[in-house]
């Protein structure tokens, strides 16, 4: 283990380390803590300059309640779910199929197609923007949630395929080989043999894609104009414009937008990190 385990150090160094941890964390998360404090103080505090001291009263419920009552935050959150969940399901399902095809079959196109998915995954969004908007326009799905979902699902299939293909590639190939020799149909091998084995990968991808889409801002601004379809990221930006000088409400709304991905991360931490660090240990 590197650096040298702290247990082997003197008592003094050990205590110093244990003391430095919370301090470092405090400094690291200071912007977040400060905005949380702002979100629970009354508006009068900010006006009188009490921005960082102890709030004169704790208005957690009032402030957050006001955000829900005064704005469309609830609908924005619901819209985001409406975008994120179908995208997650479609792209992960498609990637199971494509990843399986590219990992298991040794045909001439396997590697070029895999690289196509990988490369497409890294292109700047702006080069896709105008043609995608134009196409959605002609398909009459611009400015609708399904229209955005179609794009997200197609685009995320690239990342999911990269992930899934490498995951399946690492499985023991002999299993599939022997099933084939037994005469099992290709689709049955996929369904009964491979799919149960890739469950961890499916979980990791679901968490990641959900978070990516939840946090998407660019595509929602480009593809959605109607207020009734906007997701929370765009909604919060709009609120920021509407609530000038009402920082306690803006910060409460911002934190609301951050809560679901954070919860998702804490529940599925293992899968989340496994997904993000794919390839950081080998290769």
């Amino acid at each position, binding site marked *: 283990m590197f650096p040298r385990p702290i247990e082997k150090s003197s008592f003094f160094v050990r205590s110093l380390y244990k003391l430095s941890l919370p301090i470092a964390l405090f400094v690291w998360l200071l912007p977040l803590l400060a905005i949380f404090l702002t979100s629970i103080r009354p508006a009068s505090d900010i006006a009188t300059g009490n921005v960082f001291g102890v709030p004169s009263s704790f208005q957690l419920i009032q402030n957050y309640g006001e955000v829900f009552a005064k704005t469309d935050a609830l609908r924005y959150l619901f819209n985001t779910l409406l975008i994120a969940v179908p995208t997650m399901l479609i792209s992960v399902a498609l990637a199971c199929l494509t990843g*399986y095809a590219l990992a298991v079959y040794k045909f001439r196109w396997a590697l070029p197609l895999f690289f196509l998915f990988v*490369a497409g995954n*890294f292109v700047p969004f*702006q*080069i896709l923007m105008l043609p995608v908007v134009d196409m959605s326009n002609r398909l009459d799905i611009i400015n*609708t949630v399904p229209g955005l979902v179609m794009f997200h*699902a197609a685009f995320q299939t690239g990342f999911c395929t990269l992930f899934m293909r490498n995951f399946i590639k690492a499985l023991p190939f002999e299993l599939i080989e022997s099933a084939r020799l037994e005469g099992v149909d290709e689709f049955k091998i996929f369904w009964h043999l491979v799919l149960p084995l890739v469950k961890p990968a499916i979980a990791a991808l679901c968490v990641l894609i959900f978070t990516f889409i939840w946090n998407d801002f660019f595509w929602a601004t480009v593809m959605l104009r109607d207020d009734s379809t906007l997701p929370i990221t765009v909604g919060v930006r709009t609120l920021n414009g509407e609530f000038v000088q009402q920082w306690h409400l803006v910060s409460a709304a911002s934190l609301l937008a951050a809560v679901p991905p*954070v919860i998702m991360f804490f529940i599925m931490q293992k899968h989340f*990190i496994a997904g993000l660090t794919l390839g*950081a240990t080998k290769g």
Partner: protein
Amino acid sequence: MTSVAAIDRFATSTKRAFVAAIVIALCLFALQLVTIEGMQSWLDVSRQSAARVPTFLVRISLIICAVAAAFVFVTSLSFYKRNKVAVAPWLFLAVGLVLFMIYVIVPIFQSISYSFTRWDGLYDINGVWTGEWVGLHNYKLLFQDPNFYTSLKNNLLWLLLFMLAVPLGLFIALFLNQTVTGIRMYKSLFFFPFVISQVVVGLIFTWAYNPEFGLLSEIWSWFFCETKTNIVGNLTRVCSPEPPSILGDEDTATFGIIAAGLWPQIAYCMILYLTGLNNISSDQIEAGRLDGAKGWKMLRHVILPQLKPATFIAIVVTVIGALRSFDMIATMTQGGPYGSSNVLAYYMYDQAVGEGVGRYGYGSAIATVLFLIMLVYISYFLWRMYQDEVEAR
């Protein structure tokens, strides 16, 4: 006996293929019948736009039905049964690949072709394209556009300064790579900023930078301000010098946004390195210790070589993150003040759809330049992956 079974199987698969073909034909026929106007009168909604989502959902279900039937059709052909291993991968790939082609690969080339035209994104009433072909005109304009150079310069700044995330991430990872109680919680809390949306990070930092009541002005006041009682008797804060308005100043706006962007990016690099450190073989560390290596020497000669895969991924994601920077600029400055914090990604958006400019051709030219820059990194990344694949074989 066997021949009877074979004939029977042949018969059922012919029947299957036949049924599947009928389903495909029916779906395609029904697809022609579904129109927005029809859906509008059937659902009895007044606005045409309200009928768009149901129409799309019906259409997509029909297409899914047709595709599913097509799979049944193909798999019941004897051709498939004879060439299973050759045909099956294409069946698995079909839907994902077609969608990816339509939405990602083809648009890249469309965008490049738009960049040679002058177009505002509209069609005339007959659906005929209204643009005109102008050759390299957009690129000529681009290379005379001072805003383009500002954006390009800022993109380079982003690329350079964003790279700080890699060593800083490594530093925090080394700091946290211990086994004291509660360290898991610390690790996940340090990772926190990455999970939050960039829009929210942007808002948090906009507020932190606010010269009147932001976090930075508060810290500033500890050093440069004193509280005085003014003539009326109220307490006021007098600072000298005044706290800087980071996002309002042309010289500092970009740096302010980059600093905000580094926050989540450092967290990402940290988690990559933590995973890498976790997988380092302890034998080599022990061997290094026996040779008398420790501290910096150990890091440099034993640890870093083993962290190479993590470093590679960290650099790749950081480069992509730097070139994709859009959300933060949109929330924090909108490219301002006076275009000084623009980057290509935001400038393209601004020219094409922002502020109602509608310069599709010009925007596409900017996007193409950005794409070409990214292509350098994509090619390098693919080349590295190719090397690994060849090695693994």
